């Protein structure tokens, strides 16, 4: 990331001689000169860092004087083991954009322009230390002009491994999927043809940094709907790429913090409050009050976006699969999803999706931690070497331990699906190569049916098992760098995780640390007919609840609200009466599903968590509502169990009294928020613990987070939420790794 050239430059400016070298430990600098010069050098080293550089730790020691006469950049070596940096990808920088627009520059309109401050890293590296011959750029021998820049220590492209120009670098190609369309075009004609396709409402697969996007005109409803049909994605909000902050402001309310996040080198998709009547197609984010926007992250995107203020730019994949990152694969398996394809011949060593985030209370909140962030390590006080944690089943990530660093990998998708599983395995292999980790211990969730179990088959290495919500809690502790042996109160709002009483959990108050935890409180389990299949149908969950609790009127209400087919209704009723194929889960996700269906927000979901998300969207930007009466609780086996059935009954009553749906949704949220705050306070009083952590996928809910936090802060508890790791199951593997390292330590004692 231009660190060594930066060191070189300030060394020259401060009259320092010596050398700088990359090894597997990081960067080693030998500096000699006058005492004042050396201290200026060190000061500037810390205070003038290039945009992408971060100093994770700094050690300084004395060394015999060698009387060197100049300062040099030495070749990288693969020695060392204490700390490892795997460079992340960065969005195209201003300097490169300026050059790209300059007709006199030799990289005028060159879509692969980059420098030490920007461009691909993680996605092109095959092994470390990071040098051009071990990247996918080794296919492109440098021309003499590039070679000169590359070897000039004062140049912005000194040792920029992906350096390229039109004479020597990658080139652009266009391919039409239709037989009658123009065949293969290159470079400018390829680009202009792509733009024409997009203007005509067509969908184009565009190869970016970490994989393919499917792009279409975000203002053309027909185009967006066609993309939805082809991707079989009826409802999931699409991310929209905008060409500038000004365009972003047309579609969303953009705060200062959101603006700087949009413009950051990580260039994530930022979820912001959607404006009304903006000209964007309603089909882009149906039922949402928020919208995810991002700026062009590569020079290629910047060139395309010269002609558009907003394009749908969604992950190019088959529904549920990882994104395509190889043009052959698009041709073979994705050709029916798009009209044409814009691609290039720079290979992607390993794919990565766009990161999706928002700004809450001035802080970052992750939905998906990916491009720009993966695989920045999380430094721990523990020895985590050789630990590989295999995460949860959905939103799966792996975490790799090396020395005292944990590398959380990108999202692998649903491991039950072959392409996701294959990619997860490829990732495992490639991380082992990058980090040179030999696994010594595996870590898994206790859930007996997670597919990872089968993978390990006959491993002879120890396997550690971790409870799902314990992992959530510890991931949160690590995210915020808390001491892992000091107990915290963990408030877990989640879909479902396997609990230590062999039931499914997901609305839990835990108290504990990295070593162990207690379950203080929960909610009365809700009926889930037909197991996992039932989560696709919130109306079935609501109907099962009605049959259990409103026996006299259940039939009438179900028919009036959900209009089920008679056979389906009869069978469902029968299942409840006979307790057949019924599960009972104490899950926040299912509670939201149930209320979402009752209020007519979502009856059937097409995306995981959709019913809860759409319900929370109704009150996302609302101030606050009055609560219903707070649910009572009962003691069951030392756990305070909240009777949230009373809350569902209150929701139903309000609906039948004709109360406005948004108001009911708001009152439901407010009641839960107060219930959570009240119980958390009770645990705090009981334990004397003041640290409260929020985790679990349902904690994405902005209203709940905001309100509970406000109430608890008012009672002077300190509430911590995730900032660096998603609160959803993407964070599970991090918690797993730490819990296992603690267990390993205790075992060896």
């Amino acid at each position, binding site marked *: 990331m231009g660190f060594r050239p930066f060191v070189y430059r300030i060394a020259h400016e401060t009259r320092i001689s010596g050398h700088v070298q990359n090894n597997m430990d990081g960067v080693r600098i030998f500096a000699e000169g006058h005492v004042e010069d050396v201290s200026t050098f060190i000061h500037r080293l810390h205070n003038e860092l290039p945009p992408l550089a971060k100093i994770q730790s700094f050690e300084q020691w004395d060394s015999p004087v060698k009387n060197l006469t100049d300062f040099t950049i030495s070749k990288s070596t693969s020695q060392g083991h204490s700390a490892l940096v795997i460079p992340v990808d960065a969005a195209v920088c201003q300097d490169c954009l300026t050059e790209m627009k300059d007709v006199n520059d030799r990289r005028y309109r060159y879509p692969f322009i980059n420098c030490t401050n920007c461009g691909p890293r993680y996605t092109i590296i095959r092994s470390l230390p990071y040098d051009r011959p071990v990247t996918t750029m080794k296919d492109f021998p440098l021309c003499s002009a590039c070679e000169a820049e590359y070897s000039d220590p004062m140049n912005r492209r000194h040792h920029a491994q992906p350096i390229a120009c039109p004479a020597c670098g990658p080139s652009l190609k266009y391919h039409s999927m239709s037989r009658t369309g123009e065949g293969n075009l290159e470079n400018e004609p390829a680009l202009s043809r792509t733009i024409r396709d997009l203007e005509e409402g067509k969908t184009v697969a565009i190869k970016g940094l970490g994989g393919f996007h499917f792009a279409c005109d975000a203002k053309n409803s027909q185009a967006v709907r066609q993309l939805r049909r082809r991707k*079989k994605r009826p409802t999931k909000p699409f991310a929209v790429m905008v060409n500038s902050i000004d365009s972003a402001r047309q579609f969303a309310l953009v705060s200062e913090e959101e603006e700087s996040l949009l413009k950051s080198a990580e260039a994530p998709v930022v979820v912001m409050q959607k404006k009304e009547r903006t000209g964007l197609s309603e089909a882009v984010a149906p039922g949402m009050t928020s919208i995810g926007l991002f700026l062009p992250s590569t020079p290629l995107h910047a060139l395309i976006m010269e002609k558009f203020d907003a394009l749908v730019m969604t992950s190019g994949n*088959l*529904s*549920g*699969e990882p994104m395509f990152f190889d043009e052959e694969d698009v041709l073979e*398996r994705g050709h029916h999803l798009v009209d044409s394809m814009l691609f290039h011949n720079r290979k992607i060593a390993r794919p990565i999706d766009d990161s999706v985030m928002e700004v809450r209370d001035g802080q970052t909140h992750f939905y998906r931690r990916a491009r720009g962030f993966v695989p920045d390590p999380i430094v721990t006080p523990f020895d985590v070497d050789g630990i590989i944690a295999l995460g949860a089943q959905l939103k799966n990530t792996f975490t790799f331990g090396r020395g005292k660093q944990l590398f959380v990998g990108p999202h692998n998708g649903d491991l*039950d*699906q*072959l*392409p996701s*599983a294959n990619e997860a395995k490829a990732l495992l292999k490639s991380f082992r190569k990058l980090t040179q980790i030999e696994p010594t211990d595996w870590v898994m969730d206790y859930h*007996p*049916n997670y*597919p990872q179990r*089968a993978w390990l088959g006959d491993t002879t290495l120890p396997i550690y098992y971790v409870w799902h919500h314990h992992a959530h809690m510890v991931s949160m502790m690590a995210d915020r760098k808390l001491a892992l042996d000091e107990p915290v109160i963990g408030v877990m709002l989640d879909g479902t995780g396997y609990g230590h009483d062999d039931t499914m959990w997901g609305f839990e108050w835990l108290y504990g640390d990295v070593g162990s935890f207690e379950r203080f409180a929960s909610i009365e389990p809700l009926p889930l*007919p*037909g*197991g*996992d*299949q*039932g989560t696709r149908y919130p109306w*079935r969950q609501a109907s099962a609840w009605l049959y259990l609790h409103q026996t006299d009127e259940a039939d009438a209400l179900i028919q009036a609200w959900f209009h089920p087919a008679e*056979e*389906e209704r*009869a*069978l*469902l009723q*029968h*299942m409840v009466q*006979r307790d*057949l*194929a019924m599960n009972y889960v104490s899950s926040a996700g299912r509670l939201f599903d149930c209320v979402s269906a009752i209020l007519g927000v979502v009856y059937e979901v097409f995306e995981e968590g959709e019913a809860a998300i759409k319900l929370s969207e109704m009150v996302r930007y609302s101030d606050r509502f009055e609560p219903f009466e707070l649910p009572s609780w009962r003691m069951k086996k030392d756990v305070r169990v909240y009777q949230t059935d009373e809350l569902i009954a209150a929701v139903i009553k309000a609906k039948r009294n004709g109360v406005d749906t948004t108001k009911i949704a708001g009152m439901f949220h407010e009641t839960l928020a107060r219930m959570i705050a009240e119980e958390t306070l009770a645990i705090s009083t009981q334990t004397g613990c003041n640290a409260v952590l929020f985790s679990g996928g349902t904690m994405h809910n902005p209203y709940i987070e905001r309100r509970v936090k406000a109430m608890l802060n008012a009672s002077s508890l300190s509430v911590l939420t995730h900032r660096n790791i998603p609160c959803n199951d993407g964070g599970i593997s991090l918690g797993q790794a730490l819990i296992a390292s603690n267990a390993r330590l205790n075992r060896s004692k």
Partner: protein
Amino acid sequence: MIRIGSDFISLAHGDGGQKTHDLIRDIFVQAFEHHEEAKWDAALVHCDANRLAITTDSFVVSPRHFPGGDIGKLAVAGTVNDLAVSFATPKWLTCGLIIEEGFSVDELRQIVLSMAEEARKANVKIIAGDTKVVEHGACDGLFINTTGVGLCDKNHSGIPAIEEGDVILVNGTVGDHGMTLMALREDLPITNEVESDCASLNHLIHHLRETHPFALKFMRDATRGGLATTLIEACSDLHLDLVLEEEEIPLSPPIKGACDLLGYDPLYVANEGKVVMIVKKDEAKRVLQTMKAHPLGEQAAIIGHIKHVECPEGRLFLRTALGVDKVKRRLPEIQLPRIC
């Protein structure tokens, strides 16, 4: 018809005395029509094959009577099918019965007659048998074991080489038997719309082999564990990667609906009249036509293909309607209890 003098089975029917003699003579010998063989302690049969196929199976199904059959029919068809899918011609069956004290004699007669009828249809003889009566509570009514003997085809020597692109064929809708039993046991409101597929498949298989002598490479009857478990076993035994197309797998609408609500995967629900075949790819269409013309194959379908051969792991994939391949594994727990 001779009456055996009581309405219910007692322990005395199993003690080897007069009552046992009456029971066997009046119910079994009559139904199975082999007065000659019954004179000996063992059945003597003549055959000139140099290889025999032998299989055995026990039937403990509950309930014993269901739309489409009963435990007797099942006990014959199940064993006949195990022989037929092994490329053998079923010839003889033995049958062992374990009867709970107090069992209704009428029901026993009905079940034995049903065995006899299925044996006639399948063109096999039931040539030896045994009955035991156990105390009340020691078994659930009636358990039947059958052992089958068949003649191996001299022209069939081992499994021919299976190739990439070879086709997977099934002779009709899946999950019928298991869901029918489930519906009965749980009194589901679909009971009137479903029927077990219980049937002897030997004539269908024989006919296919006559018509397309070298087309069928491998067969299994997809009983307990359903189509998926059967194919998972086959994939690991034969080192094949196999892809099923979800949308091509025949399902009857009430079974599809019930499975969806109950959260059951119909591919894991038992069948008792379904054979799944690996068929040479260039003959698959013709085999399918022949199958569809047969009463036991009207809803036959091509449901998948061999993706790779010589895979040490041998995996079964299901390509969903969205075009995504899912790995199918053995179910971690029994999906439906005791269905057989």
